[in-house]
């Protein structure tokens, strides 16, 4: 996605958010508005939560709690931030709350089994999409939680550092440092992967 496509996409998302907020204001269109909100954000929020928790069942619980919180606090949403950054903040906080409550459980993270070593470097091998996903999944799972959040928002969500700063309530400088560390760690992990 180049700069102009990204601009168009953001513009579309902003219009979509305005439409959602307009619909949820009115009792007669509330359900449609909330349904549109879930349709619009469910995949992105699922992905972000899953990157932090690395487990579908836990992600399901947290995603549902996130939407319930969004519904509850939507009447108080004043539009000072973007709807989507506000929702990502709720999702991140819910995931962190879940992690804190279930520390022991999350010491055992899912790791996708890979096919073994090829003798070639990861980047020299022609991977199919699924294998790349599996490698990335395992690499992300090994990151510290803070770097998981940052990597997910930057790499997959393509958020600007300013938007990330709104979501994570952290300075832009600290976020850049975290992202760079995360990329380096993923890089190190990926370089150790070899496939037959």
């Amino acid at each position, binding site marked *: 996605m180049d700069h102009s496509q990204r601009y168009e996409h953001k513009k579309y998302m902003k219009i979509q958010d305005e439409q959602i907020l307009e619909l949820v204001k009115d009792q007669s269109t509330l359900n449609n508005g909330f*349904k549109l909100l*879930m349709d619009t954000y*469910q995949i992105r929020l*699922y992905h972000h939560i899953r990157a932090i928790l690395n487990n579908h069942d836990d992600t399901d619980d947290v995603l549902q709690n996130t939407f319930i919180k969004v519904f509850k606090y939507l009447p108080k949403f004043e539009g000072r931030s973007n709807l989507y950054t506000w929702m990502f903040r709720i999702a991140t906080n819910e995931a962190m709350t879940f992690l804190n409550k279930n520390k022991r459980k999350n010491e055992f993270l899912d790791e996708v089994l890979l096919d073994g070593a090829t003798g070639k470097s990861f980047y020299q091998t022609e991977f199919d999409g699924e294998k790349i996903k599996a490698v990335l*999944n395992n690499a992300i799972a090994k990151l510290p939680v803070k770097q998981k959040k940052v990597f997910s928002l930057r790499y997959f969500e*393509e958020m*600007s550092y300013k938007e990330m700063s709104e979501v994570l309530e952290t300075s832009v400088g600290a976020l850049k440092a975290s992202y760079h560390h995360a990329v380096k760690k993923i*890089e190190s992990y990926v370089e150790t992967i070899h496939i037959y």
Partner: protein
Amino acid sequence: MNTEIKRELEMLHSGLAKFDNSKIYKPADSYFDKMQHSVLSKIEGKGLGRNNIIKLRWMMGIAAAFIFIIAVSFLINNQSNTKDTLSTEEVYEYFEENVDYLDDEAIAGIANDNELNFDDLFYSDSDELNEYIGEEIDDITEDELEQIF
């Protein structure tokens, strides 16, 4: 991939810049429908639905109105009680202020209505009343004195 993200990865000499950054976690197709259904059920179950919020607001409004009515009637009753039961001091004060305009029957009536006796009136600490009686004693007829004492 967004060019800004790609450039940043290239600057970090990361091989990730070569890959598509599409979503890597994808649940089963039917998952999101079930998830939405579950969320909406929980919202209704927890009473977070807007209908329930409106009902709650109505109930709170009715409760507030009820409390207001109770409070107003309590205040009115308190005020009327005050009027019904004037203190002895208030009666004396009224008597002293209006004694010039009251005839004997009115004085007797006030004392009677308020369960006072004339001893109470004349053993009061009111110097002004005693002074008045002293000054006017000559003008009071015997009958009137008899009635007072």
